[in-house]
């Protein structure tokens, strides 16, 4: 069988035309949905309609919380060729540690359980159900997949950094310079691209591994099993089981972003 380019082109063209048609005939309600709605690309992804909703539970009662433990972060950053930049302004981070009172600033008033004051919490992209970053992106370089992963298309990003202004979690990093100038050439993971200067990046729940039936690399790397990943739409999944039995909090839920990273404290 030969690779049929016409078939592929026409399908893409059809989707585009269908979307435009929907926009023009849909009337004001559709327009309102388009402007304020969560997911304008829902029509073009045909797989996994809401039967899959990926989420993560960070069990901070299991996390070693030791300053010298960086298994999850090191594994992620090594796998995804995230450079270690010493200048804090230019740092690029997909998963890192943030003091509890910084990760949950609205909870720092009053008395807290003693151990929380010094505790470093693992933070990453929350893969919101209602992501402000997706809402503001002028090119749809970032969007929400049907399975809930907030993706980045680094090919399309124009580097306007509107998503960084919109993300209330500080989860997004910009390539202020060419990362290849900082990465150790010998340490580059040949199976994953690097980035170019001038684009935004962030954690994508290891979409490329999930699509092949693997776990995110940070989850695999944690020896304490403090990171749990799974399908929230499946009542039998490990994340559903944990959240059914334990009290968990999320970062800034009052903003209506519906973050899907839970913390057991």
């Amino acid at each position, binding site marked *: 069988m030969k690779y049929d380019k016409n078939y592929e082109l026409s399908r893409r063209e059809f989707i585009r035309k269908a979307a435009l048609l929907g926009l023009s005939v849909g009337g004001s309600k559709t327009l309102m949905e388009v402007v304020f709605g969560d997911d304008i690309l829902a029509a073009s992804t045909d*797989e996994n309609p809401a039967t899959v909703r990926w989420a993560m539970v960070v069990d901070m009662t299991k996390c070693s919380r030791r300053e010298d433990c960086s298994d999850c972060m090191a594994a992620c950053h090594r796998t995804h060729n995230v450079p270690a930049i010493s200048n804090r302004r230019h740092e690029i981070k997909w998963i890192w540690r943030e003091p509890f009172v910084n990760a949950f600033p609205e909870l720092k008033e009053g008395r807290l359980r003693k151990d929380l004051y010094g505790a470093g919490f693992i933070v990453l992209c929350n893969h919101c159900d209602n992501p402000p970053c997706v809402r503001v992106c002028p090119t749809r370089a970032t969007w929400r997949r049907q399975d809930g992963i907030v993706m980045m298309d680094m090919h399309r990003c124009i580097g306007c950094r509107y998503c960084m202004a919109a993300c209330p979690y500080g989860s997004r990093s910009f390539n202020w310079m060419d990362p290849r100038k900082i990465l150790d050439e010998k340490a580059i993971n040949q199976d994953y691209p690097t980035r170019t200067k001038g684009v935004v990046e962030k954690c994508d729940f290891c979409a490329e591994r999930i699509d092949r039936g693997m776990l995110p690399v940070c989850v695999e790397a944690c020896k304490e099993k403090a990171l749990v990943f799974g399908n929230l739409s499946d009542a039998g999944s490990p994340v559903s089981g944990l959240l059914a039995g334990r009290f968990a909090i999320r970062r800034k839920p009052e903003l209506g972003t519906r973050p899907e990273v839970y913390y057991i404290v």
Partner: protein
Amino acid sequence: MRDKIKILAGAAIFLAVALFPLWYVRTTGKASIVPEPRLVNAGKECVNAKEYMREYHMTMLNEWRDEVVREGRRSPIVIAGVEYQKSLSDACMKCHANKSDFCDVCHNYLGVSPTCWDCHNSPKEPKHEIR
């Protein structure tokens, strides 16, 4: 428009000189230098015919990119019983492993500089003299 003739003649001479490469090749039927990309694994079958690939590989790569990144459709393409990932680094570069002898030769000749390798890794090549 007193100088109509002069203006037209000047414009004609300019076009003739500026478009020299085009009409020279058109009339003589051959270019003086033709790029000769070299293959490492010659003889194996590619995902499509040579003529198609020569003209449309960039379109195809862009389509693969959109399918994989944007639509999450990562299932491999099967050609003559062989599975190919939709990937520049993981598929194309496995056979066309010699970027400088294969990709760059034509790209340099045409004066195009694709940004693919700003991010995507290409296989390490032995050092060789600059052509």
